[in-house]
């Protein structure tokens, strides 16, 4: 086990002829929280999706927990991973989406127990017990049998976090988890994430919540047009950015 959870080396990603990631280099250590900022279209979501094998990178190398993402390296050639292996690796990485993406035909509890029972083969009772515990931890102990439509956005997002945590991931990816929420609902979701960070979870969080980044992040990364423009400790990047592009972006967001 290495201490580096995510390592990107000159990662490139194209969609057709549109080059979205143009050489990303970064490292996230185990137990660290990295916040990513950057203007719309700079490739933040795409980068998270690459980490979770939802997109294949075109050049460079991307490692999660010391293992190459999406490919197997036998020394001189890269082999595409079989769908089954990709699924197994995804199961170890939790992902939380801007639009929650809860399964609308299942209750909160069913949303959380589905993958542990079907993917990990956990027994039904054990899965229910753990799901109940997780939902209680994010403050939704009284919403176990509620369908997503009847939950507020903030509650839905907390169910989504519990759903990801139920897989006992070693890494959590958050793609603007609070951007679709009314301002008064943001706090509860950020609290759940803060708690998670305190518990030592390795997290990459795309967010525009500067307060959260300043308080929780170990590293802040500023992305623009497919490259990392600036990265470092939050106080340095957020308070005294070096790069022009970072300065103007932070001025706009604040």
């Amino acid at each position, binding site marked *: 086990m290495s201490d580096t959870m995510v390592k990107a080396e000159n990662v490139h990603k194209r969609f057709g002829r549109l080059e979205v990631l143009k050489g990303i280099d970064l490292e996230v250590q185990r137990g660290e929280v990295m916040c990513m900022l950057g203007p719309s279209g700079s490739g933040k979501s795409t980068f998270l999706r690459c980490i*979770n094998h939802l997109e294949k990178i075109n050049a460079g190398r991307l490692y999660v927990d010391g293992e190459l993402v999406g490919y197997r390296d036998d020394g001189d050639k890269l082999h595409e991973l079989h769908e089954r292996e990709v*699924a197994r690796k995804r*199961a*170890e990485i939790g992902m939380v*989406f801007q*639009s929650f*993406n809860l399964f*609308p*035909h299942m209750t909160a509890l069913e949303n959380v127990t589905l993958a542990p029972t079907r993917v990990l083969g956990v027994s039904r009772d054990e899965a229910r017990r753990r799901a109940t515990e997780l939902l209680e931890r994010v403050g939704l102990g009284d919403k176990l049998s509620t369908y997503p439509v009847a939950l507020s956005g903030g509650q839905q997002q907390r169910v989504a976090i519990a*759903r990801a945590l139920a897989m006992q991931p070693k890494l959590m990816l958050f793609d603007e988890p609070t951007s679709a929420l009314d301002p008064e609902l943001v706090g509860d979701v950020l609290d759940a994430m803060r708690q998670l960070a305190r518990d030592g979870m390795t997290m990459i969080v795309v967010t525009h919540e500067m307060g959260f980044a300043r308080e929780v992040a170990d590293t802040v990364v500023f992305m623009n047009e497919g490259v990392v423009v600036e990265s470092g400790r939050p106080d340095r990047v957020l308070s005294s950015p070096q790069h022009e592009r970072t300065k103007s972006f932070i001025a706009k967001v604040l």
Partner: protein
Amino acid sequence: MSTSELSKERTGRPEEIKAVPVRRPGRWIAAAIVLVIAASIARSIVTNKSFGWHYVGQYLFDSRVLHGVLVTIELTAASMVVGIGLGVILAVMRLSPNPVLSGASWLYIWFFRGTPLLVQILFWYNIAALFPHGIGLGVPFGPDVVHYTHTNSLITAFVAGLLALSINEGAYMAEIVRAGIISVPEGQTEAAQSLGMSRIQTLRMIVLPQAMRVIIPPTGNETISMLKNTSLISVTAYAELLYATQEIYDVNYQVIPLLIVASIWYLVMTSVLYVGQYFIERRYGRGFSRAQQASMRARWLGFRHETGAA
């Protein structure tokens, strides 16, 4: 003035409005015309001897007719089950990134939707003419693994009917299922995949259950059409409901009364299907609407309940 003061002043409930309704003479005239037409149709139905109502009563529960009803139900159910199965497979093939699979599915749908069902039925019924030396299953251009020498003993009238109806239905169901699958937001698939679920699991547990909401209403209509289309199988002299009544009127010449008997049974069966469809739709609407109890009456009045996405 603060809001609380305002509301204090408004504690007394104002007088109920009693307005004179707008007169709508058009409605009365239209209703009168419809009633007159209905009355004259009813009079003709009752007085015209050719309707032969006592024959209708006599044959409505005739054992041959009841057997025909049973066969019609069997044929409808079997053909729908096979047709839906085919439809799901074809829809998944159609959406597959593999061009051979999606092309084959396209070709199938194009062929079976583009030719009349009656022609397809006659084809299947006469398939023996196409393979006079029997039908076998085996390697293309190689030896057969299974072989039936008498094609007609394999393709009985029931099997011919089942094949024709279900294979034709598969083409229509494929389009319905495909529309259902496409209607499920991509985020659902991504969420399932990010949890490590396989493609098949995602389809079975996440996509199809949600697609059901879109798939079920047209499938109900398809079942009702199927029930009526089984009457086409009568051309192969297979004793479903219509053929059963035909056999009776070929002997006693009471054509109209027996067609009325058939119609009554078709109406009974389609009505039962309408009720079934309502309950199934409600079951699969779970989790999609806060007001789930859209009443039967509202549906009959032609309102569709709101199905706003989550």
